[in-house]
């Protein structure tokens, strides 16, 4: 559990960071909270020569809330997401989900940007962001561009982000008032990734459903959302079951995970419906 040698960089601006990435190429990686990246380096599964630490980039911190949207800096920690009362009022499902991520120690340093940028199918935020129809703002050495969360994930650890791009901000449209929500997650213990997790928003004739750790990317199903919006719970579940593709691991075999996914989804739907007004 000892990483290989690397150079450490601590740029003072996003532009400088992006410049470093394009200059150093493949051998460089940005470092946010480090709680996904550093374990991989210690296992020598990631062998990097340069770490570009984003810790000093104030432009990537902070949460802004307007009437129609929420903008979250990529370097906002999961703990900060939980602690922000205004955010909890505007998009309550974020706090509910963040509280189910890892443990307090991890949440104090792990960031939302690192969580969504990593492309780890086990991470909870990507599915949640798809459910919320969030947009990621990424910046390379040129002008920044926007990528919808639902189009971001290609396969495990592969995303639409270019190597030299930095994810700076996440833009989330505020769900209409009275939207019911729920984030349900089954896990073996505190600090564990999901056996199955479901994010559900429903209300005002609309619905959105996304699942976590049941495929090599998060699973957002348009059909499931449509079905649920029309009040067809069975159709929603069927659409999700058709879309997931879990792999077996120490949490259990595929058959078990599929069954649990259905249970967790139903629970999330029940709870979201009970909160919709």
């Amino acid at each position, binding site marked *: 559990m*000892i990483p290989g040698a690397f150079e450490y960089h601590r740029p003072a601006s996003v532009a400088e960071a992006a410049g470093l990435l394009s200059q150093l190429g493949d051998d460089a990686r940005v470092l946010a909270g480090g709680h996904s990246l550093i374990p991989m380096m210690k296992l020598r599964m990631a062998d990097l020569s340069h770490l570009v630490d984003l810790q000093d980039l104030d432009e990537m911190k902070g949460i802004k809330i307007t009437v129609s949207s929420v903008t979250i800096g990529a370097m906002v920690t999961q703990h900060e997401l939980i602690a922000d009362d205004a955010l909890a009022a505007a998009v309550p499902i974020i706090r509910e989900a963040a509280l189910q991520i890892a443990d307090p120690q991890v949440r104090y340093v792990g960031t939302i940007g690192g969580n969504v940028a990593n492309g780890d199918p086990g991470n909870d935020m990507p599915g949640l962001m798809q459910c919320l129809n969030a947009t990621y703002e990424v910046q390379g050495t040129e002008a920044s561009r926007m990528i919808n969360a639902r189009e971001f994930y290609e396969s495990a650890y592969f995303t639409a982000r270019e190597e030299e791009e930095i994810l700076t901000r996440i833009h989330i449209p505020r769900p209409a008032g009275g939207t019911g929500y729920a984030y349900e997650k089954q896990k073996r213990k505190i600090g564990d990734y999901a*056996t199955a997790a479901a994010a559900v928003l429903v209300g005002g004739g609309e619905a959105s459903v996304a699942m976590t750790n049941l495929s090599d990317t998060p699973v957002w199903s348009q059909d499931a959302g449509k079905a649920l919006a029309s009040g067809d719970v069975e159709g929603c579940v069927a659409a999700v079951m058709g879309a997931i593709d879990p792999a077996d691991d*120490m*949490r*259990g075999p595929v058959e*078990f995970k599929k*069954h*649990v996914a259905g249970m967790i989804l139903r629970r999330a739907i029940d709870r979201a419906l009970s909160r919709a007004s």
Partner: protein
Amino acid sequence: MNDQTLTPEERAANLKGMGSSRKRVEDVRFTQGKGNYVDDIKLDGMLFGDFVRSPYAHARVVSINAEEALKVPGVLAVITAKDLEPLGLHWMPTLAGDKQMVLADGKVLFQGQEVAFVVAEDRYAAADGVELVEVEYEELPVIVDPFEALQSDVVLREDLDPAADGAHGPRKHHNHIFTWEQGDKDATEAVLAEADVVVEEMVYYHRTHPCPLETCGSVASMDKVTGKLTLWGTFQAPHAVRTVASLISGIAEHNIRVISPDIGGGFGNKVGVYPGYICSIVASIVTGKPVKWVEDRMDNLMSTAFARDYWMQGKIAATKEGKITGLWCHTTADHGGFDACADPTKFPAGFMNICTGSYDIPVAYLAVDGVYTNKAPGGVAYRCSFRVTEAAYFIERMIEVLAIKLNMDAAELRRINFIKADQFPYQSALGWEYDSGDYHTAWDKALKAVDYEGLRKEQAQQLEDFKAGKTRKLMGIGLTHFTEIVGAGPVKNCDILGLGMFDSCEIRIHPTGSAIARLGTISQGQGHATTFAQIIASEIGLPADDITLEEGDTDTAPYGLGTYGSRSTPVAGAATAMAARKIRAKAQMIAAYLLEVHDDDVEFDVDRFVVKGAPERFKTMKEIAFAAYNQAIPGLEPGLEAVSYYDPPNMTYPFGAYICVVDIDVDTGETDIRSFYALDDCGTRINPMIIEGQVHGGLTEALAIAMGQEIAYDEMGNHKTATLMDFFIPTSWETPTYVTDHTTTPSPHHPIGAKGVGESPNVGGVPCFSNAVHDAFRPFGLTQSHMPHDHWRVWKTARELGLHA
């Protein structure tokens, strides 16, 4: 100088002796991060060693090329078996009479096995070196199933002569290690043949790992000028390590100093001898510099001592009324690639023959077959006395299976079979003499405390609701009454590698009435410095706060066999009391002299000797201590100290009654421990708070084992649970609230009547949690399912019972 207005009770309270919930003196440093563990040791010029480990479970090592590794700046040496061979150190003896490769000698037998030792200036360079050592392997067929091993043509241990006996007698097959038989086979089979009722079941206790917070490690420092080797390490038995190190290295024993500093949990993981210890010593001798080796978590989970992995086939015979008439058990024990179990020499399956449990079973038979497979070696007593957890799990499952067959309440079935209080000392069918017990009293107290009848009613109601579709949750009630056997042990029976299992204590009283005591044991978190001072305080009347306790340095501590198997209090605790009594006897003579009366005319009174019939005439222990050093007393040597080496006449037999309630979600397999009640009887209670802490910790480890913790391999022998993401360690979140209780049945043969408690909660806890899960499914026809009861296995049980319609 002593306040005469204090009552004897007040004076006793001031001593903080036995019975006082004195706060742990160790915690001052532990809670401030000021402990001193092996990895805290830093010596001038210290080097660091790290292992190249096998990625294969079974393979030939064709070649090892260290050229590139040696080019890494800071890498000084790469040691292989070839380098150790001239010293005779490429293999080492195991505690079980087998031998184990220190570094791969031609082949590897488990994934993670040590292949080469890279020595570097720091651990970073060592890790870089490890990456660059090129090892060429030729894969061999892998066997991870012990039953298959006994059929297979594949020879795992090519170094052993298949025709020759092993350390424990004849071997039946090239992958067989030993057969160990206890009890009366013919008589037991006769009873089984004629019994009203016989149940048979395979009870599997899965492979797990003690996984202490601190992993294993050592620092070896060979001083070439003095010829002295100092070895710091995570040793649960430092003196034994010194003797064994001397015997295998040829270094004279007085030139070896072994030090166990603070140890961050052992649970049996730190009893054995590991290749890392040997390699750090050799590397220090070769380089002339201190060399440190410390495992990381994956090393620890993959290579140093696992626990359990017992397949226990059982048969139990009973009358129609439920009186047990006989017990039969055949165990297939998976020992991995080398037999490195930590058991007393004469007990290759430990004390598995305590498997008649708390019950009066007239005849019994036990046979254990040890088997080699391509898994890591070990088989240590993970928070239990040797194999006692396996035995308790076996009998407590068999009782439940019998209750199902008889359609009886399992609490009642236990009650009618308990050994009765007036049967102690009790001779068990498998050869033990239980010292004392009162099982009925404990059981009734436990059932009453949890309102057992009320619970059963509630459970019946919930079952009805379940069947009516009103809930998807089932309620299970877990029962366990366990009997342990701890405190090894009489030297006539118990030795490890020929070293007798006595223990020791040396006490020195200082002139001002404070003291230092040293023991042959070593605390790994049990709080010895707190409790043993309390024994001395009560025995000689000096405040526990004025007594320093030291363990773990073989240059200063008296010889002893260390701490595991709950033996510290039964053995070293007894030695402590006996040494204190020697001091008290001398103090009595000094007091009599000072008071100008005959020795027999003074008597001990809490913290002083008083003249019989004249309590106003006394000498306090503090006054006596001062006089012992500074006053010429005719016929007495100056000084006040004593040492005791204690060879216990018998083991002690703690017991307990545990009851828990679990709620099970049949759709997701999630479980929730609603309540847990633990009644422990460990004889005389020295520090109730420490006992409670030990019970909480042991129950939490039991929860882990029963509900999720396992060492799993795939069929290629790949280790699947080498990180704490997959190896379950409960956090406070998963840990239920425990209710603790006790009865007190002192051990008749122990000087203070104490029995040892640290391991009881693991021994009793595992069957209790497991029985609760089984009990929830009993109405649907479940008799036996395998631990750990993680979500998917519980779900699978529900599915197989048709509960997911």
